[in-house]
């Protein structure tokens, strides 16, 4: 049992924080408010690619650092802290990770090196509430023909390739589709937190054999990837919640009313103390999930628990931090409001606390997930 960072983990966190502190601020983020531009900082993205951070969990033979999901998660925590406008969850977690785990050696060597170099951008359709794909495929002599849609895919309009599960006669297949393929049409959504997401329609889109990741048995890939996406959202929530909390603690320590800092009112101090405990709970549950997934161990229970906390903590910390700031917390000239949008997104995506709790409760009722 080790809750400390290794030297590499410590260095990676420091590197990520330096790059993100330099590149992301309230004024750079303001450029994307109200969809003034797609929320994607390509210069920062290239910096992250060049620093090696985007390839943390990619094997060295494909141009990555060859580290694990724990290290990737710690990087994502820093992204959450800065709410940086980059497609790390889409490209690294929903794109490269499942390819590295499930794709053939040929497909890996075709896609992963350019993805690790940042020459191509990947995204994956693993975020919808339904586990069954709303996308169907027919067999053709050349491969598959796709018809249907998938919803709310992050960076779908910016990505070059989409990794997507499809319903086939034998169950679920998973394929790679170029986003500019004939028959693919995307409709941009306006998400609460300004991140570019889009629904994608497929109208008789051909997929050649070479781009089929799994012709059947894709359910395992979907479960595997969704667990990692969920843990990554928890890490992102952890960074965002911690940052919002520190902002509120700092603000109430400076802001004076009745001649004294607002922080000296016990009611305010106690509400912040409760947020501190909340964030610590989220931190520990998230790190546990990252640690287990990093070792490729079963972590269904631990991921569900982390997401329950990510939802509850995000909600409570967001409103508490807004509240103790008074009007400043919702003033768009002060940085807190954008964090509240992300805390909300992270709370709701990939299963709210209630939905995750229901899923965990069903497993417990089957006798799964009890304490050792």
């Amino acid at each position: 049992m080790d809750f400390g960072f290794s030297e590499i983990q410590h260095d990676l966190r420091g590197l990520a924080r330096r790059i993100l502190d330099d590149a992301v601020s309230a004024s750079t983020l303001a450029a994307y408010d109200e969809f003034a531009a797609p929320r994607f900082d390509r210069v920062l993205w290239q910096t992250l690619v060049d620093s090696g951070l985007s390839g943390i969990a990619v094997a060295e033979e494909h141009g990555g650092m060859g580290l694990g999901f724990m290290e990737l998660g710690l990087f994502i925590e820093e992204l959450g802290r800065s709410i940086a406008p980059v497609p790390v969850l889409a490209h690294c977690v929903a794109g490269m990770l499942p390819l590295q785990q499930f794709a053939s050696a040929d497909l890996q060597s075709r896609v992963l090196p350019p993805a690790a170099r940042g020459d191509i951008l990947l995204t994956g359709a693993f975020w919808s509430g339904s586990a069954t794909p709303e996308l169907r495929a027919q067999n053709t002599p050349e491969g598959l023909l796709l018809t249907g849609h998938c919803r709310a895919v992050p960076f779908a309009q910016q990505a070059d390739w989409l990794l997507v599960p499809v319903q086939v006669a034998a169950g679920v297949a998973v394929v790679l589709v170029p986003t500019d393929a004939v028959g693919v049409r995307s409709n941009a959504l306006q998400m609460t937190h300004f991140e570019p997401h889009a629904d994608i329609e497929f109208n008789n889109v051909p997929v050649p054999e070479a781009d089929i990741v799994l012709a059947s048995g894709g359910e395992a890939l979907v479960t595997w990837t969704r667990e990692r996406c969920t843990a990554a959202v928890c890490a992102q929530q952890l960074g965002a919640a911690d940052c919002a909390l520190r902002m509120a603690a700092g603000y109430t320590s400076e802001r004076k009313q009745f001649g004294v800092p607002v922080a000296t009112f016990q009611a305010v101090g106690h509400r912040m103390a409760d947020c501190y405990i909340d964030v610590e709970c989220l931190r520990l549950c998230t790190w546990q999930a990252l640690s287990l997934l990093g070792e490729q161990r079963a972590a269904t229970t631990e991921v569900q628990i982390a997401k329950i906390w990510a939802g509850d903590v995000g909600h409570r910390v967001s409103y508490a931090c807004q509240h103790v700031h008074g009007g400043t917390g919702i003033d768009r000239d002060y940085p807190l409001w954008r964090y509240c949008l992300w805390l909300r997104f992270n709370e709701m995506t990939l299963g709210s606390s209630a939905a995750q709790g229901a899923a965990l409760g069903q497993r417990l009722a089957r006798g799964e997930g009890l304490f050792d």
Partner: protein
Amino acid sequence: MKIQFTEAQVALRDELRAYFRELMTPALQAECERDMGEGGGPLWREALARMGRDGWIGLGWPEEYGGRNLSPMEQFIFVEEVMRAGYPFPFLTTESVGPTLAEHGNAWMREEIVPKILRGELLVSIGYSEPDAGTDLAALRTSAVREGDDWIIKGQKMWTSLAHFCDYTWLAARTDPDAAKKHKGISMFLVPNSDPGWSCTPVHTLGGVRTNATFYDNIRVSDAHRVGELHGGWKLITSQLNRERLSLINFGPISELFNQVVHWARAEPGETGGSIAELPWVQANLARSRALIECMKLIVYKQSWAMTEGTLAMADASAAKVFGSEGFIEVYRLLGEIVAERGLLRSHSPGAAEQAARIERLYRTASIITFGGGANEIQRDIISAAGLWMPRASR
């Protein structure tokens, strides 16, 4: 970062579970039940001494005290398992007073008292609170006055739990009534409960647990009974309380109770056919409990790790205490809703079921640790000040 037990830690846990399955005989369980989960009976004492002889109590202690030199994490695994087994382990003596004596005590304490604690042969009660000094502990009035080489101790303490079967009281007394700040005039003593000037009267509580008012009628002790620096007791109190707050939150029993309630709900038929566990609201309560207890586990494991590393932070000890104490209450309610009216039957009632009756009692005892070991309001003050660097109002 690796948030899993090592193989050796898993093996230790399994070894301890087997050990306690054998140790917790039906007769011992019945005695513990009779003593309201407080211990103190002859079989309980015998079992404690056996754990001491078998080298378990001092698992994480240095060899010089008779320990096995493992880390606080292994020590914690032991305490978790002994509590999970349902043995009322005197953790305040072994996990909080013992280590504080080892760190700050004189040669007699280190060479006589501490090894006896680790052998399971000596128990210490804690004398802090007084009728007029609770949360504002530094207002305590029990006095220790120097007379020649000795000290004369006079006063009254409240909530001196377990004192009626302990050997000593770890006592806070005022040694400098003129100190500019009231917490700078306090010293710590180890007072023998066997002294003729020592007496106690029981205080019976909501949960059926006995605690005590203790009286110190001009008890004469030598200076060797004083612990640490003269007038420097406050530091020892806070150090002991930090350890106490950690040991109050033990996830062994509650995780065991949770598992048992799940097993029970899966077997218990509901009104509409199928088991109670199939009801959506039961599943929701189970899931909430499961998520909460998981955090309790991780918080205490992280702190055991931090103690091993020597980096235990005050805010985190307080966070564990607040989260754990309020979490216990929440879980007892959630699980209590599942067992429903069965959880209103006391253990000796006709029709009482084991788990439900346990919840009936736990619900009555659970409030103790939201104020015991330092009121949670004070803990939240500590968290916002030490954890978030927020300024505090002067008191």
